[in-house]
């Protein structure tokens, strides 16, 4: 009979090994799924994972890796801080939208002023938008003990409606011939986040790398980071050690909100270009997968973000070349999280074979 024995400490080896195993299992079962859809599984997997990096048109796809990876990493870094401490912000999608709205709003307010201060102000606006949106669940949790999962998620739907309202009303392009959507920020030189569009470089990429370093230092070298880890791993010990949960909740939700807001701003002023009704494409939710796949570790998240960006780009190629439905990629990404969570068993428990005893 198979018995699970709890490890005194999570296994280091398995902590590193499970994401790799999860990716491999997802490839196998994803391949099966693609085969069920009538596609050649080997070719589909190759198209998703190999084509964007080393294929014929890789020079075109590689920059995309930065474009898609940056928002994922930026959001996931923020989420991972909270997840570590058991604070569940799952409304990053809403904070991402609000960051984009506020940031773009700041930029559009200055239009057509040509000045170096426009973009920095937009960055502050974007971070503020996301931060403020995350402060709603944070303050409600601190003050009333309201469940932050539900509140942050409800606010995603509210943000989506606001986005629709903004692109049809307040932020609508006055020269847009009545079409919904704001002015295109990439055509407004002072407000674009692009640094070099040909290599996929925009300020979001820079900020993503800064966030990774910042989070690494915070978690490993700073008291606050220690408190975050302590609260997640031993809540009772944290309370005795004098960790103030209120401060932690405000910090974790606020930081993740601000980072998600930044991601939204860099997207809207770069790759996205404008505020439209369907501006958000689920980065806030995919970032949850990225955070877990990266083991809530900054460097892991960087790698996981790259991998997830790869599935986005590879998925698009597979869509156009093999006719693989877009939803199949979404299932593929969901599968990855499943395998990861399931295989985590090996990290925390030892699987032993033992003779059956009388219960």
């Amino acid at each position, binding site marked *: 009979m198979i018995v699970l024995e709890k490890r005194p400490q999570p296994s280091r080896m398995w902590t590193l090994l499970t994401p790799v195993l999860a990716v491999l299992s997802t490839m196998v079962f994803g391949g099966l799924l693609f085969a069920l859809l009538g596609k050649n599984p080997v070719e589909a997997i190759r198209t998703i994972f190999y084509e964007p990096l080393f294929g014929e048109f890789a020079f075109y796809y590689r920059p995309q890796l930065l474009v898609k990876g940056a928002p994922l990493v930026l959001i996931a870094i923020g989420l991972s801080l909270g997840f570590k401490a058991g604070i569940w912000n799952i409304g990053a999608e809403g904070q991402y939208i609000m960051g984009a709205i506020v940031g773009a709003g700041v930029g559009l307010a200055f239009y057509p002023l040509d000045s170096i201060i426009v973009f920095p102000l937009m960055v502050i606006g974007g971070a503020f938008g996301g931060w403020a949106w995350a402060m709603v669940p944070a303050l409600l949790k601190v003050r009333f003990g309201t469940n932050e*999962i539900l509140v942050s998620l*409800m606010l995603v*739907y509210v943000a989506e409606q606001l986005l629709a309202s903004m692109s049809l009303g307040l932020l609508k392009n006055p020269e847009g011939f009545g079409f919904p959507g704001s002015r295109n920020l990439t055509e407004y030189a002072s407000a674009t986040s692009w640094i070099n569009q040909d290599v996929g470089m925009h300020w979001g990429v820079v900020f993503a790398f800064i966030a990774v370093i910042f989070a690494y230092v915070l978690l490993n070298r700073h008291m606050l980071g220690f408190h975050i880890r302590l609260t997640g791993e031993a809540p009772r010990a944290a309370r005795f050690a004098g960790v103030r949960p209120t401060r932690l909740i405000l910090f974790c939700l606020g930081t993740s909100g601000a980072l998600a807001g930044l991601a939204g701003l860099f997207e809207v002023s770069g790759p996205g270009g404008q505020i439209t009704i369907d501006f958000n494409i689920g980065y806030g939710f995919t970032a949850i997968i990225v955070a877990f796949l990266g083991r809530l570790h900054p460097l892991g998240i960087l790698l996981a973000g790259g991998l997830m960006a790869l599935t986005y780009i590879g998925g698009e190629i597979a869509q156009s070349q093999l006719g693989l439905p877009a939803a199949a990629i979404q299932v593929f990404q*969901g599968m990855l999280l*499943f395998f990861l*969570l399931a295989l985590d068993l090996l990290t925390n428990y030892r699987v032993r074979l033992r003779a059956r005893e009388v219960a």
Partner: protein
Amino acid sequence: MDLGSINPVLLIASLMVAATPILLAAIGELVVEKAGVLNLGVEGMMIVGAVSGFAISVETGSPFLGFVAAAVGGALLSTLFILLTQVALANQVASGLALTLFGLGLSALMGQKYVGIKPPPTGDIHIPLLSDVPVLGPILFTHDVVLYVGIAIVAAVWAILKFTRAGLILRAVGESHDAAHALGYKVVRIRILAILFGGACAGLGGAYISLVRVPQWTEGMTAGVGWIALALVVFASWKPWRVLLGAYLFGGITVLQLNLQAAGVAIPVEYLAMSPYLITILVLVILSKDKSSAPASLGRIFHASR
């Protein structure tokens, strides 16, 4: 603006229809949470139920078979949650999120060839005499069967939890899994059954949206109803009849804002459309003070070490 165009009788009748998906999903989740498991995958199970119910009823032409398929679909998806949380002992919050993300993708994949099709109509039952009563007749007695099934499930859950031994055991497992285990109850087995029931109910609720309320299939059509259902369980302090009350409250808000949109009230459509979500938050805030009624083992992982 013409508020006079809102017919109160029709409003209340459609309120019951709007409330049923939330009601079904929430009563299922209530049983799951009473067993001490927090399944955040309600939204995912609902949407998979919605698409499987829709597909089967279009293929067979029978709404009844559609609802059966929806319940099976929801339960099947919940087995993934069972594997993660009860077998692999994974974190329930993360697993529930995974279930929702996966379910949303899966449903989009399954529903591709059903976009833009009309499902076979689910007939209303007309009870002679009763449905002819003025005012009350159209409100209470001219609905489809599933709506009444929803109310019956609430009554059954209430009675089973309150009066039967099975209900007592379920609650014991939810309050203290260690004590229940020590008494010889199969904690994991009981929880698996509860999760399956929750999945089936969520599936039914989803199919009610795609077969009765809308009725058609579009991607992501549950639009957060599963999450509202989760909030509703908290709102109801884990009490079945309050779930009914809460579902009708939310149904009422949804229908009212739709009616106000149609009546051309001077508030922009987007702001009316966000009202159900804002009110959910408001209700959560008001009711979160009292956490005493939550099952004590809610969300905790059970591992029998000996």
